[in-house]
């Protein structure tokens, strides 16, 4: 019986990982489409080093937190959902027709994964 339980766990564990991976992959797609144009790592215009959202967070946090969302370890799914649905400062709120709750959660999973893997840059 114990052996059977272990075998079941072994069978279930990779499935859970696959689901998580799929969520992170989906989150990356959504982030790239909906978040990165403002919060990504690309350069801004007229020689600016950062995109508007990234630059706004640089100014806000003065180096205490990363300007790049993909390097943040402190953003819970609830926090991200609040910012997306309510807006914050010059970032307007987004409707469910633009980004679903499931997509926001996938973005949260992607950010958490990305922040774990990518070291913070100054």
């Amino acid at each position, binding site marked *: 019986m114990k052996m059977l339980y272990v075998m079941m766990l072994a069978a279930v564990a990779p499935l859970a990982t696959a689901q998580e991976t799929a969520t992170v992959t989906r989150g990356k797609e959504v982030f790239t*489409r909906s978040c990165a*144009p*403002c919060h990504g790592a690309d*350069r*801004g*215009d*007229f*020689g*600016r080093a950062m*995109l*508007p*959202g990234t*630059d*706004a967070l640089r*100014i*806000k946090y003065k180096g205490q937190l990363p300007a790049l969302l993909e390097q943040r370890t402190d953003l819970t799914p609830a926090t991200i959902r609040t910012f997306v*649905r*309510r*807006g914050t*400062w*010059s970032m*307007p*709120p*987004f*409707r*469910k*027709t*633009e980004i679903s709750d499931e997509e926001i959660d996938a973005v949260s999973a992607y950010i958490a994964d990305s922040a774990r893997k990518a070291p913070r840059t100054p």
Partner: protein
Amino acid sequence: MAILPPGVTATDFGKVLKEFEAAVGREWVITDPDDIHPYRDYFSMLKDQDDELVPSAAVCPASVEQVQAVVRIANRYKVPLYAISTGKNFAYGGPAPNLRGSVTVDLKRMNRVLEVDEKRHIALVEPGVSYMDMYRHLEEHKLKLMIDTADVGWGGLMGNTLDRGLGYTLGPYRDHVNASCGMEVVLPNGELMRTGMGALPNSGAWQDYRYGFGPDPSGLFAQGNFGIVVKMGFRLMPMPEHWRTGLITVPKRRDFLPLVDMVNYLTDLFVIGEPLYSSPLQPLLSDAAFRRAALDFNEAEMDRHAAASGRHSWQVELQFYGSEKTTLANWEWAQELIRRTVPDANCFAGDSLKMPVTQAQIDAAEHPYPAPYSSVMRRNVMHGVPKLYMWRSPGRTDDSPDTWNETHIGLFSVVGRSGEAVFKAQKDFQDVVRRTRPGAEYVSSLTPPLQWHQSAFFIGNSFFGTTTRNDNSPEGKIRQLRELRQVLKMNAEAGHGDYRAPPLLQDDVADQYSFNNHALRRFNETLKDAIDPNGILSPGRGGVWPKAHRSRRGALRK
């Protein structure tokens, strides 16, 4: 707090919502205040006030048939609707309706690019397709076509066009209404209509010829409320082989007049894309003597300071789309033309790039021109690459880290396309500021015209909006709104009317277009009452109020 549509009982509204749910699915009828929040104008000057333009609900159809069903239900119960496509028309009201309590019809779920023909240079899209979506589609399918994008790429082709948005490439494309070709529209009775060749069953030329036969009503749907557009065709610019820029500067203030004449000539021969005017004298404003001369429009003194500083008074950046040889020939021609009337003009060659350009080329930070001249060209939009770069404007800056522009707004007057008209507008606008805020100093003699449109200039007049960071208290925002209303009125008295406005100011702008006792508005409202007898579609949009709600005209004037 729940809001009801005007004139609709709570009982009836409950039935309406149930019927909407049956039409589009329960998930897509939005009534929870938290979910309604993004349907407000995030930048409203009436934010959180009792009369803020907030919808009562939102309904989100996914097909033309569902839009028709929603409109028919609304008609039965006389519920006002307000249609949005991507809902990103910030600075012009965002997704908020003209009439508080309207039900927002959110068309974002209808987001398919239905057709792109690379050889005929046309596209057909649904309302929810953003400029970024369209750009991705062209990239993914390796189509050699360009879009003329709005400044902030999250906006949509259809919504921007229906608000008469403008762009940055060649004239026929940067007037987005002009580049549109063929519409499918749900009329106020729920019937489906196609304009132009789309009205001819089996026509294969819907996106090739806009007019079809007989009167073409397609213009009524831009800044109007005569139907919900559910498909729209566009003409797209073929990807040219080459892009070239050049800078022309002229030494004296009055040289601006022949400069504009020359640029107009090239513009109307479709030789150049959007020309970008500016004044290299801007940095001299920190010199008190020059500033005084600029405030007084003392042209001789301004010219003297310009010469002493080694700067020319005006510059224009030209952009040429074509082949390497034709763009070079056209640039050489432009130099020849300006030197015929302003012999001491300077001409500097700028970029010369094979198209399509790479993102690295677009991002190249170095300005191609020798000091003290520099480029003000935003290269992404010139290449039809949608970005969100401009969204930095309402946000934090290093100079202002703890504030943001809570009342982000765009107001621009249409000005005749001549140097004389620009000089008159500069004086008029300075006078308006002086009268509105006595003691305020506003230098407008260096303000350049914007030529987003092929044949007209635009000059910004949101003097107390985007240009300053204001008192963001509720009282401060209302004060700002009152000032803007005063500005619009004074501008109009001087002959300057705006081309676009947020719902809060649309009645004010429409009031200014008053020739022959508002004959234009009376004509539009006669049509409105005939086409939409229950007045359900976007009451008040463009200043057009249906009989059922006409008493609300100007009701928001605090």
